[in-house]
């Protein structure tokens, strides 16, 4: 009995170290089932080219979803990420086109994208921590503001890059895998370490679970929350780099529309509680993959694009219901 218990304990600790909590098992099973079902339903699904495309598609929103995971674990929400993609993309291309040397231009562009994304995140974070505005309302407002600024700057027109090297960034491959996918996976690994192996990660969970306990435990609640929004902003910056370089342009009216929904959906499907306090990065990665594969399958099977939103919505509902049942 005791031996069994310590065995369980040890297993538990191994599982924990990988961040593969039991909560992640459900989405993982769902992913496997979905993969099998998809490969049976369509002969094109396992096609290398199709898989590569799905992975690339997933990485744009997946990168953002990883950032949003931090905000949600901290007890917040970020609705502004989609609009932020458009605004950061516009700023990135302006910076890129302003520098003549193509290599330098890309370096400057990347810094501007990451920097402005982080800055917008700080802005969101300050509204929540200093302004004491609920995250939902604060980021609903900045969602509108970011989109509007992007449209105003460009007069709602598309901005095109004139840098010859830029498309290689988001369109390129390394070891046969698209660069955005690399960015997504490396970011996931870094985020996982940040969440499970650093003080910030532990403190973020404590703040999200119970702000009062965190305060009484000497945790700097406001800095931690500010940090989570900043991470989300920087992730948006990274996503914007990948997206604009793939397209070699950005359309301020279309870019990033409804990305916030995809990101939040990936987080929820991945088992992170919307109430905050606990979550996992790998869950979010799996959540993003599930959403991407479902989208892809609907396309391959010729389902009307107008129905895709319904399917996505249903998946989110099921994920939340499963989460709720498990809590009981």
């Amino acid at each position: 009995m005791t031996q069994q218990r310590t065995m369980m304990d040890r297993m538990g600790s191994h599982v924990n170290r990988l961040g593969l909590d039991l909560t992640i098992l459900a989405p993982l099973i769902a992913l496997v089932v979905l993969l099998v079902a998809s490969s049976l339903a369509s002969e094109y699904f396992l096609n290398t080219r199709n898989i590569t495309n799905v992975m690339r598609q997933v990485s744009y929103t997946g990168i953002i979803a990883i950032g949003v995971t931090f905000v949600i674990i901290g007890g917040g929400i970020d609705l502004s990420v989609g609009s932020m993609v458009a605004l950061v993309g516009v700023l990135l291309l302006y910076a890129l086109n302003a520098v003549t040397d193509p290599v330098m231009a890309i370096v400057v562009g990347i810094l501007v994208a990451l920097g402005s994304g982080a800055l917008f995140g700080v802005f969101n974070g300050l509204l929540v921590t200093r302004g004491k505005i609920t995250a939902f309302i604060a980021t609903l407002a900045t969602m509108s503001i970011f989109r509007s600024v992007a449209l105003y700057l460009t007069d709602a027109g598309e901005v095109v890059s004139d840098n010859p090297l830029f498309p290689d960034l988001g369109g390129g491959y390394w070891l046969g895998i698209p660069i955005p996918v690399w960015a997504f996976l490396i970011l996931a690994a870094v985020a996982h370490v940040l969440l499970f192996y650093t003080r910030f990660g532990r403190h973020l969970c404590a703040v999200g679970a119970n702000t009062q306990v965190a305060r009484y435990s000497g945790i700097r609640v406001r800095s931690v929350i500010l940090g989570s929004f900043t991470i989300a902003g920087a992730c948006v910056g990274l996503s914007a780099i990948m997206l604009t370089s793939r397209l070699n342009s950005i359309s301020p009216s279309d870019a990033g529309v409804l990305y916030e929904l995809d990101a939040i959906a990936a987080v929820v499907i991945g088992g992170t509680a919307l109430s905050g306090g606990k979550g996992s990065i790998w869950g979010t990665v799996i959540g993003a993959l599930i959403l991407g594969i479902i989208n892809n399958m609907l396309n391959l099977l010729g389902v009307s694009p107008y129905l895709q939103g319904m399917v996505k919505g249903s998946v989110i509902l099921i994920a939340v219901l499963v989460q709720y049942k498990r809590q009981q």
Partner: protein
Amino acid sequence: MTEAIIRLHNIGKSFGPNVVLQNINLDIHPGEIIGILGENGAGKSTLLKLISGVYQPSIGSLEADGRHYDQLDPVTSRRLGIAMIPQEFNLVPTLRVYENVFLGQEIRKRGFLDRKTMREKTREVMESLHSSLDPEAPISTLSVAEKQMVEVARVLVDDARLVILDEPTTVLTDREVTVLFDVVRRLQSAGVAVLFISHKLKEVRDLCHSVLILRDGEVVEQSSTDDLDEEDMARKMVGRELSQVFPEKQGQAGDVALEVRQLSLEHVLTDVSFTLRRGQILGLSGLVGSGRTEIAETIMGLREKTSGQILINGEPCNITSPEDAHRQNLAYLSEDRQGKGLVMSFNLIENITLLSLKRYIKGLINHRAERRRAEHYQQALSIRTASLNTDVGLLSGGNQQKVYLAKLLDIEPDILILDEPTRGIDVGTKHEFYRLIRKLASDGKAILVISSELEEIIGLCDQVLVVREGRIVADLQDEQINEEDIMLYAAGARGASTVTGTGVALS
């Protein structure tokens, strides 16, 4: 004698292997007021829940109206005229008095609410209670005592024959208690039976005809209140002399670890000064709301002091957040374990290392070292849990409190402020805590204990400060530490003595 409203035959209740109540026989007759006494965990609330149908007995039966029941459910219990007034009121704050009185039993006329009748009936009931409460008043505007009156009215409208009052006086002032007792006596003369649960022995003696004393789930005494004095009751409740419960006190105290000079907090604290020495357990006593917790929170930097100075090891220091306090090796156990102490969705390990996390980081968090440390505390404090990965929310109150203590101990504090350290934990664990606290003191830590339980303050502390209305009104040592003196100071019956230096000149 008239026929009993309800009779309990050999009732017992177990949760798994734990027997929490056994061999209870009790007849409750109309017009009787029965006091139920017992320590926390003695089985009082379990007994009430069996009678009101929340729990079902594991053994034995109940008899009411000539029928035998193996168990009661809340609906049947209510139909039999059994009503309970809980400690935490179940009133809807946004609704009015009469709406709450008739909540769930609304009077209707042709499908619509008959507000007029409900208002009138509420007024009648209030008159019978000699209360002038307006049926139209919103609940949120009422005082605690008035809310209690609404609960009583609700029970009366329901034609209750047995009313259970669960520690009704803890939230009331003396005058309000007098009013409540009048109401209870009026109920009794109308033939209603009353079960009265209280920790205050004097109240029980004043109000009740007979008393039932529980200890460790069994009836140890059932007799008329005329046959027992308060001391008898206390002895029967505890079942042992107080000296056995508490570890022996130690006379010698070391250097001054914490000195508080003229600490003030706007509208709450005025000129609070005291010193706390290594090896000493200093008690902070006083009524609820007297400012005890505020003293602790101000020292910890959780509240912004308006004036005053805090010295640690003789050095003045500026503490503006718990983080600063922890850096000074000062740790605080809040009275609100669930709301301010532990993260309920964290496991034991994550909770224990939350304050001391820095020590487990060499670049990254060393999870193995964290676990080893948690295992150490699990043994040292005998924390009972299936696994260290269990969420602390699933542990019993006593084990949660041990985890909370481990969390503080892991920053290796020199000074510990323990606010209600044994609140809501069972008797056995309480004793463990007393020994533990004494051991920490003899290891050279300076300990400040805040407690509402006089017995605890008297049994545990080397020196006792009494707080009233945000001031320290007495500084008691040795044989001065007794129930009577503390209560007299705490309630203001004895004037504030002048505080001189370290001691107090008693007036």
